[in-house]
């Protein structure tokens, strides 16, 4: 694939992969003969599939209306699970060589059942990762699960995957995460005025593209961006939180920024959550992956995991301070249980600390964004007026003028 190496050209390549992940991975398979392994989001170690010589692709919610899949899954399930079921029913996953499912919530479990029934000829590997993260046995149990995943892949390719190959894949994936984190740093510090849409395209394309090819694009992109003088962005600094399995609609991100917000950071799965943690590239790779799995949850706490040492709302308050965000917009997929379960705690903590936040519930079917626009605008106006008032009060204190 030859890519126009301008900033625009690179983002166009990211967009092509991110918005049509199945077509792009199918093309990769045709061109390179690489088997494609689809997985559910959140905790799948793509490194193992890559070391097995496969292209790991995280299955994405698409933009199609849910039709044939409608009767196969509850209508109140989240857009991600409903869309994945619909894609399976429409035969979109038929070209996949294998699917590896984790069970991070009840809804994803329901979706896995339907996908399995709809793809009787596709190799499906189901794994259950321990969700309690701070028990003495958490590490060994996670390692066992990853060993099982490795065996499943070995069975599929008919040979063993050696540790050196896994370590090489780990290094490749680490490099990719580091480059994406660098992009985040550039945005947070204002060195590069990247939009929320661009950040999502960069991360989402990494979930579905070959990592080496993706990193090569990222390297060129960062080079180009570093060579361009930054224009200072002006607006209300917004932290985006929420949306686990599906990427927020690009229209919502554009809307937030067109109303005068600049998204400076996030904890989205199609964002920081995906790239937060690297894997040790020395020693036993399965041990390293188990360690990664547990550490990742401390870096960006996941509401589908239980951890004595992690607290999502405390993390969010800290992350907001670090990125100097003025307010947080929570994007909650209807009806994502893990998110709904934690949201009241976030609300309480934010209210107690007087940190402004706005909840927006999203749906697969949301197309009219006007109703959201007024709320986002009102929120940004509120944050702006409050920030100014607080700054003025602080200035009064400093100068001693009462």
């Amino acid at each position: 694939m030859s890519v126009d190496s301008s900033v625009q050209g690179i983002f166009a390549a990211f967009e092509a992969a991110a918005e049509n992940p199945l077509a792009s991975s199918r093309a990769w398979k045709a061109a390179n003969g690489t088997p494609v392994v689809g997985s559910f989001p959140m905790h799948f170690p793509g490194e193992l599939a890559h070391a097995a010589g496969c292209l790991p692709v995280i299955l994405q919610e698409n933009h199609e209306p849910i039709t044939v899949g409608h009767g196969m899954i509850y209508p109140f399930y989240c857009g991600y699970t409903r869309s994945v079921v619909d894609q399976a029913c429409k035969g979109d996953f038929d070209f996949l060589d294998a699917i590896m499912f984790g069970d991070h919530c009840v809804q994803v479990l329901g979706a896995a059942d339907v996908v399995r029934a709809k793809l009787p000829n596709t190799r499906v590997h189901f794994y259950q990762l321990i969700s309690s993260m701070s028990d003495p046995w958490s590490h060994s149990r996670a390692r066992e699960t990853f060993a099982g995943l490795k065996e499943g892949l070995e069975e599929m390719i008919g040979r063993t995957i050696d540790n050196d190959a896994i370590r090489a894949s780990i290094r490749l994936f680490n490099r990719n995460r580091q480059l994406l984190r660098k992009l985040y740093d550039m945005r947070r510090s204002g060195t590069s005025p990247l939009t929320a849409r661009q950040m999502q395209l960069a991360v989402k394309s990494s979930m579905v593209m070959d990592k080496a090819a993706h990193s090569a694009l990222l390297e060129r992109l960062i080079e180009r961006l570093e060579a361009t003088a930054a224009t200072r962005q002006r607006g209300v600094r917004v932290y985006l939180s929420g949306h686990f399995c599906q990427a927020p609609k690009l229209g919502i991100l554009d809307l937030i920024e067109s109303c005068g917000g600049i998204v400076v950071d996030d904890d989205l799965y199609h964002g920081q959550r995906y790239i937060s943690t690297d894997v040790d590239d020395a020693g036993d790779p399965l041990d390293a992956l188990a360690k990664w799995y547990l550490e990742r949850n401390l870096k960006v706490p996941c509401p589908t995991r239980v951890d004595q040492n992690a607290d999502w709302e405390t993390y969010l308050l800290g992350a907001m301070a670090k990125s100097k965000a003025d307010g947080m917009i929570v994007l909650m997929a209807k009806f994502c249980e893990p998110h709904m379960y934690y949201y009241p705690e976030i609300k309480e903590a934010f209210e107690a600390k007087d940190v402004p936040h706005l909840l927006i519930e999203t749906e697969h079917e949301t197309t009219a964004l006007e109703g959201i626009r007024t709320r986002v605008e009102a929120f940004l106006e509120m944050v702006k007026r409050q920030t100014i008032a607080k700054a003025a009060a602080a200035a009064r204190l400093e100068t001693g003028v009462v």
Partner: protein
Amino acid sequence: MKPYVMGIDFGSTTSKTVILDMDGGTVASAVSHKGSVSDEGAKASIAEALAIAGITQKQVIRAISTGYGRRMLEVSDKSYTEITCHARGAIAMVPEARMVIDIGGQDSKVIAIDALGLVSQFAMNDRCAAGTGKFLEALARAVGVPLEDMGPMALRAVEDITISSMCATFAETEVVALLAEGKSKTEVLGAVHAAIAARLVGLVSRVGKREPLVMTGGVAQNPAAVHHLEKALGLKLIIPQRPQIAGALGAALIALDEAREHAADAADEDDKVDASLDAARCGTPTCTAPQARVTEQVIHGPRPH
């Protein structure tokens, strides 16, 4: 030529315009009963307000628009959402208010106000007309009573009938069924108002009930709506004298703030939150700083009590 500022609340069912002089005194206000299907309604209320004030549009040095059609108005220099403007207007009318309920044509909103008089939280009906002026209108039509008569009539209801549907269309079906059952118009209208109040209570609890609670918007002039809301919330609502113009007044007051700052900071379209740059507009509605003369020590925030 004496300068003035203008606030226009271009709603979905009515348009309101307020004109202020540079000391913040209201010189005119006008309400036109045409919504934002076209900008006719807004133009009518602007023209009426200008006529009352006896001034020309040229004398208006800054105009701010708000409401459903806020972005459709050419005369306005900038627009703000209804949340910001209603809060600003309500605080000007009732300075001690800590919460504002506004029932508009298309949406209803509940706004929490902090000690500085600023919006600290808000909730809006997200997806349909439940609990809005449009809901009332549709049901007035179903019952066959003119909108302005329905409030007083509903107040006379004694029975406890519930309308359970959230959706205006389904609620209309329920209303028709109740009438067919032989329930009187008065009783059915009582139930309609109780239904509106029930929706609003849900919104209030999303933000957390606070007092004093002010109600603005046209529906605040409907005694049955006020009665049922008070009953459902278990408190007394404060209804300012002209609740309908709160949004336009808020917009005009923001126009005034901005017109005053203009001299100091011409970058009015600049949305940067930057303390040093924006220190002149601390945003506190009762801030005394804008009145300060150039050489004076600027003191932001509300007047010390």
